[in-house]
């Protein structure tokens, strides 16, 4: 029970953010209006993705320090979960975008090419592509130790290159997406005080959920490996 408190916390925080996020008062802004509630979901996905990718890199470093295959399994599963949250971030963003950015006189499909040029979208696409490449690299090597070592090296290298691509470069280009000057999600002057009381718990809740899913997958993989070893 002592070890499970964070799983309970995750469920409680998510229930809180869903109910409070959909029911309580929000600042009425032109163009955004009710769609601003998507902040509790869309932004949380990206936070969760970045945290999971960071955990994956930390595990890759731990693998290179110890050569314990356990950490390789950790790194791999945290990266997969990160990809899932990234895809979810994209889909929630697409829904939001179709209500706020898309030209109402044009069908969404036609305004797509204009919207896809958005630097933040390119940055996020790069992040996902890097981790897809990580998966391709892993699958292309048969030897277990070699696979772990080479993919750990690529993971660290790619993560270091990812920083400029999603944190620096989009801020140097003109963009419709909020957050061109600094970090709107963490800036206390940028986001409504009431919304913050729901937004931060939501981030924590989603992150804990991501970790929970990943630990289940890790445990399953380790059990399978053990069965194979017998």
């Amino acid at each position, binding site marked *: 029970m002592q070890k499970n408190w964070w799983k309970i916390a995750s469920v409680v925080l998510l229930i809180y953010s869903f109910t409070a996020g959909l029911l309580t008062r929000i600042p009425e802004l032109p163009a955004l209006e009710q769609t601003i509630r998507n902040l509790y979901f869309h932004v949380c996905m990206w936070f969760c993705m970045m945290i999971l990718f960071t955990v994956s890199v930390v595990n890759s470093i731990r693998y290179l320090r110890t050569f314990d295959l356990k950490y390789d399994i950790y790194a791999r599963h945290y990266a997969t979960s990160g990809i899932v949250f990234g895809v979810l971030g994209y889909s929630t963003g697409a829904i939001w975008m179709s209500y706020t950015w898309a030209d109402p006189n044009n069908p969404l499909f036609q305004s797509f090419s204009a919207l896809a040029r958005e630097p933040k979208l390119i940055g996020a696409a790069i992040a996902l*592509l*890097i981790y897809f490449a990580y998966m*391709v*690299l892993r699958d292309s090597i048969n030897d277990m130790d070699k696979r772990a*070592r*080479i993919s*750990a090296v690529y993971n660290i*290298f790619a993560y270091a290159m990812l920083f*400029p691509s999603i944190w620096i470069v989009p801020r140097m280009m003109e963009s419709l997406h909020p957050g061109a000057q600094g970090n709107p999600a963490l800036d206390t002057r940028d986001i409504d005080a009431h919304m913050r009381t729901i937004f931060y718990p939501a981030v924590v809740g989603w992150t804990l959920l991501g970790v929970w899913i990943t630990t289940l997958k890790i445990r399953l993989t380790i059990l399978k490996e053990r069965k194979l070893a017998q």
Partner: protein
Amino acid sequence: MSAAKHIFTLFKKDLLLEVRQQYSFYGILLYIGATVLVLQMAINEPEDKVWNGLFWVIQLFICINAVAKSFLQESKGRMLYFYTVASPGDFVLSKLLFNSLLMLVMSLLSLLLFTLFLGSPVQKVFPFIGLVLLGGWSLSLVFSFLAAIAAKAQQNAAIMAVLGFPLIIPQLLLLMKLSNTAFNPVLTMPVNTLLLLVALDIMIIILAVILFPFLWKD
């Protein structure tokens, strides 16, 4: 022997191989020439934006072709020999140095051919040449390290492209944006972006020195 001497010896060995075999140098030269000729036949005088895009995309492909063989050419036995005589840091630095030199020459040659065959929208010649050299250097550093990874994965150059394209997009975007300022006499080149590119290059060198020892052991 000091580290610098080691690096220089390994670098000289690569240079000597290149001078004796020459096939990769002329191969890439032919590649640049053929591409530029096809482009000239397809679009005679491209607009500034098209010229810019084509130039950097072709730099990217030249780089993949030029750098791919640097690690792939070393056979298993020869790698084992290097393992006994050199330290991994020296080895990777000598490779980075050689690939940088190769790519700098290739970038200048492709700029020359582009200007000859496709005309040139460049207004500020010397800043643009500097930018081309910086861009070629950045590309060669990233792809040299990825070539080391691809060689260890016993894969061909295809996996290098898969691994490298997402990583290189931000740098290419920055380079294209900077080149646009060289086409317009009114705009000035933002120094911050240039410094960011240089900082990225330095980071790649440091990462390569730290991470290569793990790739090198078999």
